[in-house]
């Protein structure tokens, strides 16, 4: 009988203490600023490799600074910023999302820093037979981005232009070969790298990231489109000086060299 009482009375305070500790621990964890020197960069998925290189260079130049990358689709990053996510820098793969954030007053001084062009990636075994864009209908399974995501919208434009110059039959042939509308460009790439799809349309920078695992076929300039990448500091950046320094590095000649290495191209007319 006594046992019941003592167990209850000893467990109950323990439970209260546990809850109190958990809640008091949670409070600061939810509200806290990132530790000093931490720079949070919201970067479009296609920038992952180039920005990793730039981040380690930045950390070398700024002792004590630590770059934390938040990599996702530009649309997703925009939604996170709109819903109050804490970060310092936003680099978008699409001007639309940056302009929207600028209109809402959430970013400061957006500027273009690189451009990217779509290319065709072909699974390595087919590299020999599929050498030009005109050969694309030879592919059995083509994977593209969903029209809702930037790469898918560009792909649609390219196919439309191709239909206009190679004939509507060409465009229809391509459409009939599409087996999946992937939700981001890296998933398109993954399907081709794995050999499940014969061809896919991704950015040149993505193709560079899979060098040796896929064959790359350029899209004729008259059919192609250019994706412009803007970067900006977030209005609510907890580390504005570091944020500005990072943006400067990305836009510097050294930054441009890293980006070129990763497959990005200078923006036309600049």
């Amino acid at each position, binding site marked *: *009988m006594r046992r019941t*009482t003592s167990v209850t009375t000893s467990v109950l305070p323990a439970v209260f203490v546990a809850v109190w500790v958990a809640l008091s621990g949670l409070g600061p964890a939810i509200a806290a600023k990132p530790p000093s020197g931490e720079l949070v960069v919201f970067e479009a998925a296609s920038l992952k490799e180039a920005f990793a290189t730039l981040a380690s260079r930045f950390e070398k130049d700024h002792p004590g600074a630590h770059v934390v990358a938040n990599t996702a689709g530009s649309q997703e990053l925009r*939604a996170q910023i709109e819903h109050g996510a804490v970060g310092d820098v936003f680099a978008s793969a699409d001007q639309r999302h940056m302009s929207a954030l600028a209109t809402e007053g959430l970013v400061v001084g957006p500027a273009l820093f690189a451009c990217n062009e779509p290319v065709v990636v072909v699974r390595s075994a087919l590299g020999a037979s599929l050498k030009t864009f005109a050969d694309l209908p030879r592919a059995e399974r083509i994977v593209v981005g*969903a029209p809702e995501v930037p790469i898918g919208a560009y792909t649609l434009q390219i196919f439309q232009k191709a239909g206009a110059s190679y004939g509507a039959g060409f465009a229809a042939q391509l459409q009939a070969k599409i087996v999946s*509308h992937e939700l981001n460009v890296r998933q398109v790439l*993954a*399907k081709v790298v*794995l050999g499940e799809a014969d061809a896919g349309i991704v950015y040149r920078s993505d193709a560079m990231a899979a060098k040796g695992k896929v064959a790359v076929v350029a899209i004729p300039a008259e059919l192609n489109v250019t994706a412009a990448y803007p970067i900006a500091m977030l209005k609510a950046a907890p580390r504005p000086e570091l944020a500005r320094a990072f943006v400067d590095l990305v836009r510097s000649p050294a930054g441009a060299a890293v980006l070129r290495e990763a497959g990005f191209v200078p923006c036309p007319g600049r």
Partner: protein
Amino acid sequence: MSAAPSAAQRRAWRSPLLAIAWPGAIGLLSGLLLLLVALPIAGLLFSASPRQLLAGLGDPLVVPALRLTIFTTTVTLLVILTCGTPLGWIIARKTRRGIGAGPTARLWRVLETIVELPVVLPPAVAGVALLLAFGRRGLLGPALGAAGIGLPFTCAAVVVAQTFVAAPFYLQAAVAAFRRLDPDMILVARTLGASPPRLLFTVAIPVSWPSLAGGAAMSWARALGEFGATLMFAGNMSGRTQTLPLAIYTALESDLRTAQSLSILLVVVAFALLVAIRAGARR
């Protein structure tokens, strides 16, 4: 120990601190969890006007996705019931008390663990695993290719992905239910001359029915929500492989309201089917 509480026990429960603190603690802790689960669902349901939600349902993605989801999850459930029931039965029989210590029993326990592994696999990993098994370069790729079968990017791939991730839930329930069967009852049935199939169909399944139905409901719910493995293994093509969760994610890229309408649709369909299965199980 007597059934009636002793005087000391009654005094303990009358302690005023405990009388307040205990219900308070129970209420606080369960309330926290309830809120955590209920609030997001309320947010989903009430953050947009019904008109906005109805407009969202007009999106061309909706009808094909709904039709495909109902079709594929039904096929998945049938596959799981048809193959999972015998598998659960044999595992339960081979590992039942009495013969549960031998090497064969141990082997069956290992098998049981293996088929239940997908529960803990992250969905994207499940998708890659399926590609590495059934894809062009997968283990069975050359054989399937020679037979002219290309699984990835087809409706069949959706069913395979759903079965892979959802089957363990039914299997777990089936094994547990069959293990709980009274050994005397089985013995009596066998002595009365019941053949093995008769034992399964007229004794084991009817007695275990509520647990089996519960497991089936869990499996069905898991198949309905399946996203990662499907996206990886079957791709995302409206009308062919784009199930509701994939349509929701696709819509999220352009229009939050459509995604929200679709999510509510998914919640309603899931809720209705779970209620139906529960009601069926009770009968």
